[in-house]
């Protein structure tokens, strides 16, 4: 590879790290970089839509956020192709901590317990690998569609599962609705990882949620 290609390659990676780093955690960014290296690096014309669609962690984001990411990447890549930028110069280090910052959930006790359960599903399924996680997210959307739940709730749950963060302005609804959403989680986990794993995760999620202060007001078993 020529020297200027190497420089451009570094700049492109820096752009990816910076842009995706605003939305994803370190593991998600690393996974995207690996995908870039494996499949897209060195191409004259980069299919950004394809690239973004193939980043597993991005699938958890809402459509609007995915669009913003693509746009930011597009702008960054143009700069990276043109020459050295401050962005590229900055991006020589990567975050290495695999741990995700713990998010304190806010809302009613039922919502806090519910969100903890969703987060636990995400944590456990991520351990099983990106293919399982991707399958889970797709099954989750299908399960919620089957239950005639608004699509935005599926997107929001995916975000909680993937990033532990809650998108703004989500109305989770009453306990009955959250119960149906939690059931969708189990069905999706069954289909993505198998019933044995799903049972294990389900029990783990309940036990985790029992540790919460909110669990004293709202018993996690009420969802299940």
């Amino acid at each position, binding site marked *: 590879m020529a020297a200027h290609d190497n420089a451009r390659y570094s700049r492109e990676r820096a752009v990816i790290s910076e842009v995706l780093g605003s939305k994803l955690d370190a593991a998600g960014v690393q996974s995207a970089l690996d995908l870039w290296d494996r499949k897209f690096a060195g191409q004259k014309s980069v299919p950004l839509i394809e690239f973004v669609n193939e980043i597993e962690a991005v699938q958890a984001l809402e459509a609007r956020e995915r669009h913003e990411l693509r746009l930011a990447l597009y702008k960054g890549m143009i700069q990276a192709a043109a020459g050295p930028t401050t962005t590229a110069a900055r991006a020589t280090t990567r975050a290495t901590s695999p741990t995700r910052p713990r998010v304190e959930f806010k809302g009613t006790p039922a919502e806090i317990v519910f969100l903890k359960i969703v987060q636990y599903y995400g944590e456990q399924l991520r351990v099983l690998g990106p293919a399982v996680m991707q*399958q889970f997210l797709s099954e989750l959307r299908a399960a919620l569609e089957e239950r005639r739940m608004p699509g935005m709730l599926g997107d929001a749950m995916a975000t909680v599962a993937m990033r532990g963060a809650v998108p703004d302005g989500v109305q989770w609804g009453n306990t009955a609705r959250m119960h149906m959403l939690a*059931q969708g989680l*189990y*069905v999706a*986990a*069954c*289909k*993505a*990882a*198998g*019933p*044995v794993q*799903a*049972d294990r995760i*389900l*029990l783990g999620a*309940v*036990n985790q949620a029992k540790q919460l202060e909110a669990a004293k007001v709202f018993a*996690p*078993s009420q969802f*299940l």
Partner: protein
Amino acid sequence: MRMKRLACCLAIAAFTLPATASAQGLLENPADLIWVSVSAALVFFMQAGFALLEGGFVRTKNTVNVIMKNYADLCVGVLAFWALGFGLMFGDNPSGWIGVTHFVPGDLTGGEAGFMVFQMMFAATAATIVSGAVAERMRFAAYAIGAVAVTGVIYPVYGSWVWGSAFEGSGWLSERGFIDFAGSTVVHSIGGWCALAAAIVLGPRLGRFGPKGEVRNIPGHSLPSVALGVFILWLGWFGFNGGSTLAADASIGKVLLNTNLAAAAGVVGTMILLTALRRPVLITSSVNGALAGLVAITAGCGSMEPVFAVLTGFIAAPIAVFGGDLLLKLRVDDVVGAIPVHGFCGAWGTLAAGLFLDEGLFQPGVITTQLLGIGAAFLWAFPLAWLCFAGINVVLKVRAESIHEQRGLDFTEHSEVGYPEFQTDLPHAGRND
């Protein structure tokens, strides 16, 4: 038009024909009656074996449900067989296709009553084969109704072709010399084909197969229970096959010997096969090997030499193992392996009874008749059972809701859990509050 007329004739005959007084010499000898009664008790005990086997094969959260199904199919099966099935199977059979007398029988001799008890246990066995295949996802009420259809109609009508009548007339397969001594096809294949139909209508358990068809293992909760269940079934089979002599005479010895040899050969065959395939020698597969051998020898246990009983049991092993593999490829979820063991091995055993007949090996005429009987069993039982379960599905929904699968059918169907002191990790903790 002709079918309509035949149906009319049968219906009229059922209500107007007087039942022939009694079966000629049916268990009139007290020793015969005692032997068949003891055998009936042994076949009844097989229900306990099935309960342990199926209960062990499922997850803890579905144990009560599957054992309740075993109880239910025994109870509704006994009643349905007494009221309807016995008449269809053993009542006077002038057409060769169906019995038309002895419905809701009350006036029976001691021998006939003992014979009926023995046959009731067979009918319940055919029904209980289904419960293992559909475990962990079928609703209880739908299953109980299905069991009535199996014991009241599907099993006895085919049985009338082979074993009918106990009184007057005989079944069309019996007339052709079809050999099925104790029911490889009549009981086991019929039960297996009904199980196949039910499993197809139900679909697999949630998440049993991955998106590309990969199989997810769902281990049973108690393998010791599975093994104990098969020991009990093996014991019960001595009554199942031995009692089918309907006589306390020396022929029992050969029947019991062949039964025992085939069961042992089934286990050894499975172990050798699994080793040759470089698969782990699982207890679940090994004990199913015993059942495969037992099912297979049931047809020919009274009519083949012991060496062929060993061969029959030995060949049943790969049929059960590869049959199970085939079903998984087809994404049919059979929790306990009932379809390959009872359906496929029942068919094999019936063919083996013709191939290894001690009056003359490999007779083309006999083999053709055996194949005819095997095919007739499938063509009768599978479509009818499919229609039956699909029909129940329209009215009742046979499949449990996914939330029920999540919580376990023990709790959602029966408000109980199998091991309340140990299942403290259940989300609902076995409580309704």
